[in-house]
């Protein structure tokens, strides 16, 4: 029995969704609406007391960290391998996943939360929002939600996030100039991870990520977009956030 609790095919939720699709593994999908705070409701907190998405439940075992979760998926299920056999490529896969998870993605998502997540919930009743914050288990997530809901990101931290977004984009372009895939010569979990954070870069940072300035990122994103697993995964999206992926369609 395999159940995935997830939101849109995007960021952390999209990582196990795309990994499972690449492996050809069927699973019971349990959609949680992040903007409705489904992830903080008591029934989900029984699965993941931290109230973070995604969570994978496999034969009673619960996994809640999306990057190690992808390694578990690759190790456990049949299907094409998603980790290189060469130990050095494996190391590079993991190194870049950490860079994505801890440096690049948090900066992009801070901007995303300030322009998308915050405004999407902000017009609700103030008392309702305060109550929603009270139900969040982790203090770090309470801080993030409070900032998003009440537009409390400072200009300095948004500016720093934009700077890091630009720096990360440049580092990624440079890396992909030397390697066809993130780990080296093999498509891997690091590409799945990177696609989830970066598929909308040409839209969110059009002046920095485009065919002229970052041709290698654009080609890499399009190659991943064209994979059947990516198409099938993003077709599960329910919001306009996921449909942004079609910007990667090649113009014939």
């Amino acid at each position, binding site marked *: 029995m395999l159940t995935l609790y997830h939101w849109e095919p995007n960021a952390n939720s999209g990582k196990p969704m795309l990994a499972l699709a690449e492996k050809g593994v069927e699973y019971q999908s349990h959609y949680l609406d992040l903007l409705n705070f489904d992830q903080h409701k008591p029934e989900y907190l029984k699965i993941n007391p931290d109230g973070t998405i995604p969570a994978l439940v496999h034969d009673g*075992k619960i*996994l809640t960290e999306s990057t190690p979760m992808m*390694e578990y998926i690759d190790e456990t299920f049949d299907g094409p391998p998603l980790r290189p056999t060469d130990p*050095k490529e494996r*190391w590079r896969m993991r190194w870049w996943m*950490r860079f994505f998870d801890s*440096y690049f993605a948090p900066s992009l998502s801070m901007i995303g939360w300030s322009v998308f997540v915050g405004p999407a919930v902000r017009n609700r009743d103030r008392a309702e929002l305060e109550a929603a914050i009270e139900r969040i288990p982790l203090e770090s997530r309470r801080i993030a939600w409070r900032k998003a809901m009440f537009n409390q990101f400072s200009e300095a931290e948004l500016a720093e996030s934009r700077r890091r977004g630009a720096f990360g984009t440049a580092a990624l372009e*440079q890396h992909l100039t030397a390697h066809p895939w993130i780990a080296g010569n093999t498509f891997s979990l690091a590409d799945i991870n990177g696609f989830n954070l970066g598929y909308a870069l040409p839209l969110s940072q059009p002046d920095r990520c485009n065919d002229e300035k970052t041709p290698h990122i654009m080609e890499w994103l399009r190659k991943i977009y064209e994979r059947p697993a990516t198409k099938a995964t993003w077709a599960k999206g329910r919001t306009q956030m996921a449909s942004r992926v079609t910007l990667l369609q090649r113009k014939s």
Partner: protein
Amino acid sequence: MLELYHWEPNIYYLKPLIALKEVRAPFTSRYFDPTSFEQYSPSFPQNTESGLHLEREGPVLVDGVTVLSSSFFILEYIAEAFPAANLLPGDAYEHYRARAWGQFAALQLSPGVCALGCAKYLAPTLKSRDPGQLKARIERIEPQERRAAWAAVIDGSYSEQALAAVRDRLAAPVKRFEDALGQTAWLAGPAYSVADIDAFAMLSPLPDVAPEVVSEKATPRILQFLHRMRERPAVRQALALAKTARPQEAFVPGAEPSRWG
């Protein structure tokens, strides 16, 4: 032959030393002093990843032409390169747990441990250096996050209030380790793994730099865990590689805390 660039057997540097001793891999020790900024000299092994890596001054393992950085991933590399030692034991779920602990320690534990250690030991050490030269050297560091971390050590950013907040924030992650050690013998499950090596390196300074958080009274299981670890021959051998009398005082600016607050 593997070459390990490391400093004293403490924090990040201690991890690959223990793992290499556990797997009994021959390696060439390349000892450097990060407080003299030897890691920025042109002869120090470098690649894109070692320049950008989030632990900043941490160890690097050189295998042939490949320069490996980021201490938990070096541990996994050693575990996979020397599978007979079984440092990643058990099934896929135990492997998941080991990796999840590695990630948790890197994000929730290491930034606080390094900040407290730097405030207590590195900042006073750097005060004895020529301030003009030190400042000029730090100003040449790239990228800017790494430069800012060194600047924070010398400019007295560690107020008592800030350090108290760091200790407060360590309480929740420390409790997770304490609780987990009550459920299984080792962090990933019934068997010893890279997760234990990783956690040991970051938990062992805490009774010294955050006695309010980690102590015999507050966290007896963590104390027992540290004791069990120190009894392992590989850990003893790694700790014996110290070149100073007080390796437990060797700290560098580590990974930054989450920018989300």
